């Protein structure tokens, strides 16, 4: 036993094992027939002792060997590089690119079909290279449609070839590991709902300069200021050019809290809720609202713009449902960790499931969307 273990850990054994993992050969139907013929001729040669049968047997065997050598040559010294985006959105087609280089000095590679290796399985993306000349490379792009949020791990790239005679299917595995993060899908929400939500949050807006009609501040004129903004009365009074700053009307902060506690039977609603939050965040970002997302213990912080939206979508892509049995830690996660006063805003809590026993003091928010409301809002998702 000890000997076996030491043998298994020996460098030669690991080399062979690595080699077998990298290469695999499968017989095609034509190859099976060819092998049967070879076997038949071999039998005839042994039985008759006829040297011309041995010659034909040698021909068949050499065709097999040449087939193996050439297919190996096709797969050797290929270099693969994968280019993937940082974040993709579920149910939206994304283009991935794969660059393939043939580092052989003289001979081209033929009849290559390429596959992504995902969870140990070869996934056909319909990629084929009929001819890749020596010392040249090619950039292939293909669409990818992710259906689930979370990580997609592209473990490797598999290249296979039937070259030269189509008798054997030789496969080679090339390490091109890449991780692809998939955010929840973005669905259209009713304009009325978003307007209503924004309208309710009016009171939580912080005074800040921007376009509007209300006076925010008076200050000295600076080069480049709009001359129409000069406050003439104060200018006359102070004998200095004073401009008027207005308060932005639509700049209000919204905090979206997603409850991640839900039993297993609420899995579907939870996922739809995540999708709903992603869609809501997308709408709010489109309207340039400063938004903050809190998912469990994760907090995106307050921000706006597309970069901040990506941060929030990343949180949503990775959030996982926690079952109520997980206990106090999970419940603790529901509390809104408002760190400082300056980041307060209109809070919308999305609660796909509510523990009846603890319903009174779990989530404190300006607007709470419970399971029933969520069902109504997301039934079309």
């Amino acid at each position, binding site marked *: 036993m000890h000997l076996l273990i030491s043998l298994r850990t020996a460098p030669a054994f690991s080399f062979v094992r690595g080699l077998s993992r990298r290469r695999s050969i499968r017989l095609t139907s034509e190859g099976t027939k060819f092998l049967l013929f070879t076997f038949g001729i071999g039998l005839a040669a042994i039985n008759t002792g006829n*040297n*011309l049968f041995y010659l034909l047997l040698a021909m068949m065997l050499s065709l097999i060997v040449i087939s193996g050598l050439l297919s190996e040559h096709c797969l050797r010294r290929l270099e693969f590089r994968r280019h993937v985006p940082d974040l993709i959105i579920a149910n939206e087609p994304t283009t991935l690119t794969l660059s393939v280089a043939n580092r052989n000095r003289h001979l081209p590679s033929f009849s290559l079909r390429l596959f992504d290796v995902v969870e140990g399985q070869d996934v056909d993306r319909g990629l084929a290279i*009929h001819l890749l000349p020596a*010392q040249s490379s*090619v950039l292939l*792009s293909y669409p990818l449609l992710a259906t689930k949020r979370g990580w997609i791990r592209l473990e490797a790239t598999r290249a296979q070839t039937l070259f030269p005679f*189509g008798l054997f299917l030789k496969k080679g595995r090339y390490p091109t590991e890449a991780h692809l993060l998939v955010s929840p899908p973005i669905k259209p929400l009713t304009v009325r709902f978003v307007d209503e939500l924004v309208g309710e949050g009016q009171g939580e807006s912080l005074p800040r300069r921007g376009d509007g009609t209300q006076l925010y501040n008076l200050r000295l004129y600076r080069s480049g200021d709009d001359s129409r903004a000069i406050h003439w009365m104060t200018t006359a009074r102070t004998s200095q050019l004073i401009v008027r700053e207005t308060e932005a009307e639509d700049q209000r902060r919204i905090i979206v809290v997603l409850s991640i506690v839900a039993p297993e039977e609420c899995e579907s609603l939870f996922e739809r809720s995540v999708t709903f939050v992603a869609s809501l965040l997308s709408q709010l970002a489109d309207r340039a609202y400063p938004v903050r997302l809190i998912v469990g213990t994760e907090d995106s912080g307050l921000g706006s713009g597309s970069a901040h939206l990506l941060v929030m979508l990343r949180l949503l892509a990775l959030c996982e449902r926690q079952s109520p049995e997980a206990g106090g830690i999970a419940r603790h996660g529901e509390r809104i960790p408002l760190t400082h006063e300056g980041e307060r805003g209109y809070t919308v809590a999305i609660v796909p499931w509510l523990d009846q026993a603890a319903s009174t003091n779990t989530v404190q928010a300006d607007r709470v969307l419970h399971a029933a409301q969520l069902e109504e809002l997301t039934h079309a998702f």
Partner: protein
Amino acid sequence: MPFDQAFALSSVLLATTAFSGLVLAKSVPLWLALPTTIILIISLLQARGGFSVRRAMAQITVSPALWNVLLIGAFVLFLVDLTVISRDLLPAGIHFLVVLMSIKVVTLQQRRDYQHLYAISLMSILASAALTTDAWYVPIFLLYLLTAVWTLLLYHLTQETGKGSVVVRPASTAPCHTTFPSRITHRFFWLTNGTAVMTIALTLTIFFLIPRIGAGMLQKTSGETLRTTGFSERVDLGTIGSVKQDPQIVMRVELPDQPAVEKDRLYLRGLAYDQYNGRSWSHSETRRRSLTFVGEGRIFLARPTGSRSADSLSVPIRQDILLETLDTAVLFAAPFAEHVSGEFLTLQTDAMGGLYLPFPPSSRIRYSVTSQVPRLAQDERTASILAYPDSIRSHYLQVPVGSQQVADLAHRVTQEATTPFGRTLAIQQHLLENYRYSLEADTGTLSHPLEEFLFTRKTGYCEHYATAMVVMLRTVGIPARLVTGFLATEWNEYGGYFTVRQRDAHAWVEVYFPHSGWVIMDPTPTVNTLVATNRWESIRRLGESVRLQWDRLFVRYSAKDQLAVVHGVREGSDALRERVSRWGSLISAPIDQIFSRLTHVARTFQPGMVELATGVSVIGLALLLLMLRDRIGLWATTHLPTSHPQLAIVQLYARMVRTVERHGVGKPPSATASEFAKLVEREWKAAGPMVADVTALYHQGRYSRTPLTAGELSRAAEQVGRLQSLIHLAR
């Protein structure tokens, strides 16, 4: 040529090659060969792209149902052939294969049809291998292999390009590279032929290495045997004449120990006859004895009774004989066979030294014979009386009844001779001078052919001459006998062997001398046969030699030969090793001597001198390597193979940066290559042009589409070298 067209053409060519094999093996009758040939030619023309043929073929539409009926009909024909006509599975099967091939060639539409055609052609080439061992199989096999490689490759590629419509065409930077050309390009042509050549080389390697474990359970004899005359127990006078114009090869005889000269003629003895009844020759004693082994390696001792053992008079001659399939069990060899070895279990001999196998061989056989050619002793040339043993007198002085006229002639011819040898020569001379050689003298139906030859026609051939001499010698009291065999005169200088044909069948005389034994005498005049010495004759002999090599290396290749090759390789490697070690010792001996003398001197003067010298040498070598490391690295970058030319220029650039840094001009991490070149130009003016040149080449090699040439790469290496020299100068 477009791929599809080339594929169709190579497929039909494959079938045609296999069919040619069957035709050359004479296994396809004319009534079947002719229509099949026409069908194949039309298919070839159609595949080649003959417009008119295509148009004509397009107008001929035959429904699949009719083809099915034809197939059933072919099968019924096969059954009839098997049970009524051929009554043998192999010929009937071959006829069926040919019919199937014709049908398939015409109905090639789907890929499955092509697969069927390949299977049929493989069976056909297999069948022709079973039916022949002739050398024509070589070109057929090579052609088959070549077309098979083309066909398999094109089969695969046409399948792949057919799938092209469903695959996503990659958004390539150079789309033309990823899709296969639609026509056979020059490069593809040579690539495929190169693959075929590789396959042929590998086939030969595997063929010679594959272990021969043939059980021979289903071995079939290769059929036709050559009919010979003159080697049965009874031979009518005049029978050899029937084969004297037959050019078929009977055997090939190599003389491995003989020099290339003196190979004008070689007698190959078959059987000897002692009894002549006036019309035919026969043996007085038909009893045969089995030969015994001598020494190791299945060598038969074949010295005939009445012959003398080897002495200074006899000349040993070794022959390696490849005998064709004959209808006789007689083995031929130069007189007189002493030792025989070959692939046979037993061997027999008769009282007069004839060698026999237990039964006629079913295929070609190869055997080796060592013979002792007797010479006449000088004292017997001049002896006036010779004392013959009774056993000889009783057997070899018999003459047919009523040959008084012949006896008178013999006495008249020999009346002036005083010795037996003189009388023998006189009779031989008389026959040589007074009779004309002619193959037209048919004496088979005559009641007294010998008298007819000697006194009436005075024309005849070897049998008549030899019979006349034997009878005449016997009438004057000299024991003699008639021998039939072959007289080899056709030396093949390419293969180094005698080619013996049916027409070389010959009869001659053996005369007995008590001390010398049986001595060959040939009274037949030398026939000036028209031997063509032109170019064609030498080409024919070359072909002949190729056929022999084919037979030896392929048809007769056996486990024994494999063993011989292994032994040969081992002995060769041993000899090589020995030679290398001898050279090594020759070279190293004086060096060792000088070194030991130096060591001795060093130890005499200073005990620690040797260790010191060794240490100094090692350190010196290390310092030398350290000093030359840049040069070595530079050489390695440009001369050693790298995976990509990009890599070489990148390495050279990095080397240049390191070199410049040693001068104190470092490359800031934020600086691009161009900025760094400008920096160097400012800080170290002398290095500026070199750095600028290498930087330009670096840009070209790394970022442009055109890769660097070998010349440009060496220019970059040269510039880096100059830069390094500049550093050394500065120091």
